[in-house]
């Protein structure tokens, strides 16, 4: 019964809020009220981070109780609670939080990115074996040209590729494709916004 009553209220709040912000962008004199409404959204987004933290704790606590990958969940919960408590106590710019960030989070994420680069290189090397199609060969040829035109190879630059071929691909082919992609994204964003405004889409759970 509660859900049946809450759905129209949530939809009404979403439609009215979105409609007001849209109207305030078109009509002068509503800037102050719009700024207030947007600040509400900012505060709600900050609160959502805390809710996500609580949800993560609940999920892994449940895994520990069920004995499902107990070691990983225990390490995660200890690290999470320690980092959260220390940062809350000392502040985000203090020594220990900055040390945790610089010596744990930053190297891990950077290493994952380096591993991704190596994995993509090896996947491209096996592309012919996996996908022996004209599109696969087209992808490989384009990739070669862009890599050769990105800079000097082993210290030696190939001017024809770096100054002639690569700019053509970047400025015409890639840019044209990106413009089409952006137009599609813009139309999709407008459509999504209109669907939310009329209540057809309810990404808030309705």
């Amino acid at each position, binding site marked *: 019964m509660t859900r049946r009553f809450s759905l129209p209220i949530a939809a009404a709040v979403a439609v009215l809020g979105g409609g007001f912000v849209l109207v305030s962008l078109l009509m002068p004199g509503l800037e102050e009220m719009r700024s*207030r409404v*947007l600040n509400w*959204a*900012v505060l709600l987004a900050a609160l959502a981070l805390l809710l996500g933290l609580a949800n993560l704790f609940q999920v892994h606590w449940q895994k520990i109780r069920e004995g499902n990958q107990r070691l990983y969940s225990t390490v995660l919960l200890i690290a999470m609670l320690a980092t959260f408590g220390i940062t809350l106590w000392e502040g985000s710019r203090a020594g220990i939080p900055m040390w945790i960030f610089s010596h744990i*989070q930053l190297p891990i994420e950077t290493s994952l990115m380096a591993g991704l680069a*190596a994995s993509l*290189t090896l996947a491209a090397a096996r592309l012919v074996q996996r996908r022996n199609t004209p599109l696969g060969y087209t992808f490989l040829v384009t990739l*070669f040209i862009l890599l050769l035109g*990105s800079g000097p190879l082993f210290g030696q630059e190939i001017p024809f590729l770096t*100054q002639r071929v690569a700019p053509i691909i970047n400025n015409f082919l890639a840019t044209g494709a990106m413009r089409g992609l952006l137009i599609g994204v813009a139309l999709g964003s407008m459509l999504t916004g209109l669907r939310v405004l009329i209540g057809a889409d309810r990404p808030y759970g309705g």
Partner: protein
Amino acid sequence: MSHGHHDPEENLPDWLRALRRQQEEQAGQSQPAAAPDPAEEPDWLQEIRQRYRPGATKAEPQEPAAGPSEEEPAPALQDTQPQLPLRLELAEEVAEPPEPWLPFEAEEPLETEPVDEALELAEPQARQPYGDIQEVEPAEDSLDLPATPTFIDESDETAFPSTPAFSEDPDDLPSEPGWLESLRPIEDFPHEDARSAAMLPEGPPQEGPLAGLSDVLPTSHLVGQIGKSVEYSTRLQVTGSQRQHAAVLQELLQSEEQRSADPVERPLGNRLLGLLGSLLLIAAVLVPLVTGSQSAGRPDSTQAPEVRNIFNSIDVLPAGAPVLVAFDLQPAQYGEVAPAVSAVLGHLLDKQARLVLLSTQESGPALAERLLAEHLGNTPLVSTGSYLNLGYLSGGSAALRSLTSDPRGVVLSGPGRSDPWQTPALQSIQHLRDFAMILVIASDGDSVRVWIEQAGTQLPAGLYAITSAQAQPLLRTYLQSSPPSLRGLVSGVSGAVIYERLRGDVGLGRHYWDAYSYGLGAMVLVILFGSLYSRLAQTTEPKPAKPGAPSGA
């Protein structure tokens, strides 16, 4: 102001008074109506009767009647009688005009006895709840009804039979003409009661507004359904062909899961290719970094006019100009973007710009602090802390819109309890366009796109960006627009090297440039030889025999 008692007969028109007199004369000829016994009447009623007696004066209204009066009560006294049922009063009104052919008096009630009898036959229980009404009806019986008119008495009982309005006994039905009898589909009608179960009398309901009343439609089940919407089934209406397609898809998914669950037997060549490729990539990147080689030539700035634009814009900034730096960077791209950021921020610090840092990413403020401390810690403005870190701005694009329209009204996490807008770097800032430059440092193109969409139109000085190399194809569209939504861009290690070359400096970009060049060459080699090997292995691989094909000659 008092209202004295007056005779209602005074205001009657002459024609009505004559008509009433005529009726009284006619009533006097017939049997007088049985008047109620005055001895049984209460005193107050007798007083009223005496007051309105014809011939009695207003001076003696108090005199009680000595005995039973032989005179008829005045018509006005009828309002002192018990109220007759409504249908009888209506009958009086209808019968009141003195039609000469009427065989009975206007004040006499209609003959309703046959109708009552029919009602009692049809619905014997209908009168039970209205017992109080039945108690009134003896007043009707007390009236002496006139004799049945002559034309009714002389009528033939067989020609006008007294038929009740409703009778369940088929024998009670009068005989019908033959043609009507042939039209009546008697056999098609069920003999049982055709009323629905909801209409059948079940006794009075025990609850609700109709509690105690019988022969009413039961409303309990109707009340229970008020407000209950129709529920449609959410089950898919699947046809046979769709069901077959779903089965095929399910088999495909199961085969994929089974294949991934099975241990993969990779060929030795593939394993060697992966191992050698990984070793080559690591060596190509590590050797130049360890040796400090700077053999690779740096690219020319003419190949990147967007880098020159941002250099020229910073180069003309006055000392002390406020510059907003949006640090929307992810830790994964920190190593790639750090050379370009250190080069551009070093240029800004050399121009003594007042840096105001802000981030829409959670890890942005920490990354900004680390970069300033690690690469620009020797500059005077950083070492003395002459910059302002506003911290994290949550809310994504909505927060950016709020920041654009009202920078002082946004909620920030960085400065703590002190008001950052009272610091010297921000005292002159009322709007976002008051900053001399806005520089967005981002991992991907989408972050810069959001800044362009939300704030780009309100910034006459335009936006500048430092990004990863992967964002360049997307942001190039904004660089080439007219007027340009993005004024300048430094992307990747190559952009950092070009910027350092413009400044005549040797920095982190130059240090990484050889590793970048050798790593790029290693990638080309791995992909080239890996593709050749894959093609060769594919051609030499024995093809599986087709099912049903002949096994040999």
